[in-house]
């Protein structure tokens, strides 16, 4: 039996509710985006129902400590098709066991969630490290990213607390939405880029006059801090994988 849900968190939680209501035995959860009808397997389309989802979420809050709720949410943000199924199975497992079952790392779903959560948290941490703001002429600090996982909801607080006295925008180019901090609150925004605007790097016309200087000083500093006698490219690439180089001011040629 296959359950099909719309890909939302509420949809995922609703399908858990449906499973407990119907008890259809072994089920696989797939999102509509990847579902392919199979010849010999039944499938059921789950309608997302927020009240059902809320009940499941309340139940989870009673069963799980905060750190595991976070792992659950992080795994959801990974947006991986397999992760949805693991989340579904994990939730069913947690509800059927006594308190504390999330510590059973021998269970495949528990282990899977802890791995997804680790990947997502790592990506979140990388974004906290690798985002480079460029100051625009009107004093807004802008950065664009395209992270492997949907980590914007996770990094919002970090940047809000850290850069409380400057306006900033972090834009996810891949998922086409971003965050804007207006000195009070963080809001979700979408930008309509015209075709030929560069989303990664601000054009000199748009950026603050000091921007060039500090970018240059930073590149100089990056070069000075290197010790040539200890060159270790393998370690360097391991820490800063090449896919992130496009964000990094110090890795740009000009």
């Amino acid at each position, binding site marked *: 039996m296959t359950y099909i849900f719309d890909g939302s968190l509420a949809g995922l939680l609703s399908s858990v509710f449906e499973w407990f209501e119907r008890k259809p035995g072994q089920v696989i959860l797939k999102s509509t985006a990847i579902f392919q009808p199979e010849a010999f397997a039944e499938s059921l389309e789950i309608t997302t129902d927020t009240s059902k989802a809320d009940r499941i979420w309340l139940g989870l809050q009673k069963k799980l400590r905060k750190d595991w709720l976070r792992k659950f949410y992080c795994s959801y943000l990974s947006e991986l098709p397999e992760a949805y199924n693991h989340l579904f199975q994990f939730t069913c497992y947690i509800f059927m066991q006594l308190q504390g*079952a999330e*510590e*059973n*790392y*021998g*269970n*495949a779903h528990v*282990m899977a969630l*802890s791995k997804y959560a680790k990947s997502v948290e790592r990506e979140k*941490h990388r974004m*906290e*490290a*690798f*985002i*480079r*703001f*460029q*100051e625009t002429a009107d004093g807004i*600090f802008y*950065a664009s990213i395209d992270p492997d996982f949907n980590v914007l909801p996770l990094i919002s607080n*970090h940047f809000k*607390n*850290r*850069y*409380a*006295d*400057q306006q900033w925008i972090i834009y996810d180019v891949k998922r086409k939405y971003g965050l804007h901090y207006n000195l009070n609150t963080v809001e979700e925004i979408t930008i309509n880029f015209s075709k030929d605007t560069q989303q990664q790097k601000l054009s000199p016309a748009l950026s603050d006059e*000091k921007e060039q*200087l*500090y970018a*240059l*000083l*930073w590149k*100089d*500093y*990056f070069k*000075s*801090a*290197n*010790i*040539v*006698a*200890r*060159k*270790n*490219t*393998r*370690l*360097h690439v*391991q*820490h*800063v994988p090449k896919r992130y180089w496009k964000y*990094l*001011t*110090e890795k740009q040629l000009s």
Partner: protein
Amino acid sequence: MFDRIREKLNILADAAKCDVSCSSSGGTRKNDNKGLGNSHTSGICHTYTEDGRCVSLLKILLTNHCIYDCAFCVSRKSNDVKRAAFTVDEVVELTMNFYRRNYIEGLFLSSGIFKNADFTMERLLLIVKKLRLEQRYNGYIHLKTIPGASDELIKEAGLYADRMSINLEMPTEAGLKLLAPEKSHADVIKPLAFVQQNIVQFGEDKKLIKHVPKFVPAGQSTQMVVGATAESDKDIMYTANAFYKNYSLKRVYYSGYIPISNDNRMPILGTQPPLLRENRLYQTDWLMRFYGFQVQEILNDENPNLEVDIDPKLSWAIRNMQHFPIDINKADYQMILRVPGIGIMSAKKIVQARKFGKLRIDQLKKIGIAYNRAKHFITCADSPYQLKDYQGTQIKAFILAESQSKYLKTAQDQLLLF
């Protein structure tokens, strides 16, 4: 104007790079004045240089003018290098603007000693005060304590800095006397102990009074140069251990010596820096701090130096085969930690997971242990029955045969014959 600041930054960043301390962890400052910056408990490495070392702080000297002549230091008085000095405002501007662009996690400020210790310490204090009070900066600040500066200055600096450090430079007093006759370990110990007393004092006050200012919340650290003089690994680690114990240091850094001069007291120019040795020392440091090892277990009179081809944990296990194999499903956490191939995270997961049933090989692999290494030292629910009792040396051979060390491919300190 631009060129001058660029040149200064190049000179003063270059002179500071041999200070290896980079961590930005342990800060507790919150952005509660709607200023700039908020500490991240675990620290953030914002980028990595091409030698693979992390860059989390803007690491600069205030000046590289120095009245001392230490043989291992680039900025020594007798060395013919360009000298420069930042003004207070330049350091503040650089820090604020780098921080705003998310380039850095904070400032690491050190300095050559010009005029005298107090004069230098006053300048450093001026910068941190300006950052904290005028610019409302709450990011990380790592400040060098200048040995010989007055207690009042050091104490005041401690109120604004997150971490303070003084470098031991050489692991033994004899080594230091050889290369820097003007300095001694006692000069370092005095301010280190003074800051430590104050950290304890402020901590005690905090228990009684609600609003006590922070005093060096991220603790103190120190650094030793490795491979400039002929200390054994045992000398180095025993010194490190004593400093961890006596002054509750957060970190001791080991910096492989990179030849900078043709001084005949030290390795000649062009010698490879002892990177592998440095790595083994850090591994030992971690075993001491996080894995519950006593330094005497790893290094003692029979084994004064760490093995080069295998890591210290494996080396210990092979010398102490009487403790192994252990049963993963029964052994204490402390013993599981000592198994080569099992780290802290995996050990914790194992202890939690075995409450739900005996663990099997496939589960251990999924939990994330290096099974091929650990299998010689553990048994679990479905371990294959083994008739032979292998010697430590045999196990070492098995592990070396199937592992590919990233170091062995690069030649050791091998002489060229032709």
